[in-house]
């Protein structure tokens, strides 16, 4: 008899033991269920399931843009730098989906990690690609810290209720991936 089998008693007593184990399991399931007070709703963190941390930053034209003002829209926050090859590679796909879905309620905030980039190079790059979504200038790295940025690019997909649905670290993201995520976000009901 193996040590594992010894955990269970002889055949005559097995069914009660099994029932006791299953009953204990069922009780634990009930005891550890998630109550509304335990739910993540309302908590703020740069993680899926949480509300996205709010920020406001100037765009490349100097217009101040606040994340909380976009509540009700599907939002993609893309943290990038002009020297980062995968960031550059995924920008055309972001521009394409922005063109296709902006009218339906999609907003893209391309937050340039300006504290680790050259602002002039970033603006030149966005002009060269004809990017029409806002390029936000994070001069002091405040948003990078707020979102605990570990790698460029990092992209956050936010639902209409301002909650983070998915985080993609690294890139470049394929256009197909963006389209599937955006369709899903836009399909959600507004809060």
């Amino acid at each position, binding site marked *: 008899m193996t040590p*594992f089998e010894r955990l269970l008693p002889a055949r005559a007593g097995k069914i009660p033991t099994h029932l006791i184990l299953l009953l204990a399991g069922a009780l*634990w399931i009930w005891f550890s269920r*998630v109550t509304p007070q*335990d739910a993540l709703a309302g908590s*703020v963190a740069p993680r899926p399931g949480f509300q996205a941390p709010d920020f406001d930053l100037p765009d490349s034209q100097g217009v101040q843009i606040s994340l909380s003002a976009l509540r009700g829209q599907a939002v993609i926050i893309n943290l990038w730098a002009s020297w980062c090859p995968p960031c550059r590679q995924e920008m055309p796909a972001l521009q394409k989906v922005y063109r296709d879905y902006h009218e339906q309620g999609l907003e893209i905030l391309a937050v340039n990690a300006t504290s680790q980039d050259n602002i002039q190079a970033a603006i030149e790059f966005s002009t060269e690609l004809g990017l029409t979504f806002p390029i936000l200038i994070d001069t002091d790295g405040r948003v990078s810290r707020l979102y605990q940025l*570990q*790698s460029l690019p990092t992209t956050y997909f936010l639902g209409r209720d301002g909650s983070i649905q998915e985080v993609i670290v690294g890139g470049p993201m394929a256009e*197909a991936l963006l*389209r599937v995520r955006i369709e899903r976000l836009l399909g959600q009901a507004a809060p």
Partner: protein
Amino acid sequence: MMPVLQVGPVALPLPPLLVLVGIWLGLILAERHVAHFGLNADQLFNLVLIGMISGLVGARLAYVIRYPQAFAGSPLDVFSRNLGLFDPLIGAVIGVLAAVIYAQRRHFPLLSTLDALTPGLAVFTFALALSHLASGDAFGAPSNLPWSLELWGIRRHPAQIYDAVGAALILGYLWPGRKFLGEMRPGGYFLSFITLTSAARLILEGFRGDSALLPGGLRAAQVIAWLIFGICLYAIDRIKSQPKLE
């Protein structure tokens, strides 16, 4: 949390890397002990390779079939490296089916084959827990216990560490070559692993902060683990009641 491993100018995504290393180490361990189960290392390697390749191709094809309109404008994205363009559930089903078909065509004994794969599965489970630790997924529920960790402004159970410790204990208990494992009937080794793993999931899922929920706040993974645990207890009885094959 360390989602990216920076090696010079190259940023490697650590969580999938840990999973790949887990598969590789698991396969090495399983191959070293495969002879006890009447198979050889090549047979086991081919079985795993066919399962993995079929699973990957199946997962991508399933995703493309599910969202054809997303690929219409960029058909080359079918070959993208993006991990988000896979359907993992369908991929797992297709991978297992392909491995089963291969095993049947090669006349592998089913129960002994499952036993031979068990050390690899145990290592993989441990690697998966480490990959969650690196990615920050599978994080813990709020807690005030002395060993809870500060995460996103609140103290939480170190749920990924619980998972890693649980998987390590199961791996240690079922480490191949131990004397009592040789006394088990065919399928008993695999069944022991599934029983212990489902019991661990049933217990440890209760400390998670990100569980998928069923109505009433019940955690889906716990309910599934509980059902599997019950089936395993029944199967252990059945196996023990059968005469042992010499």
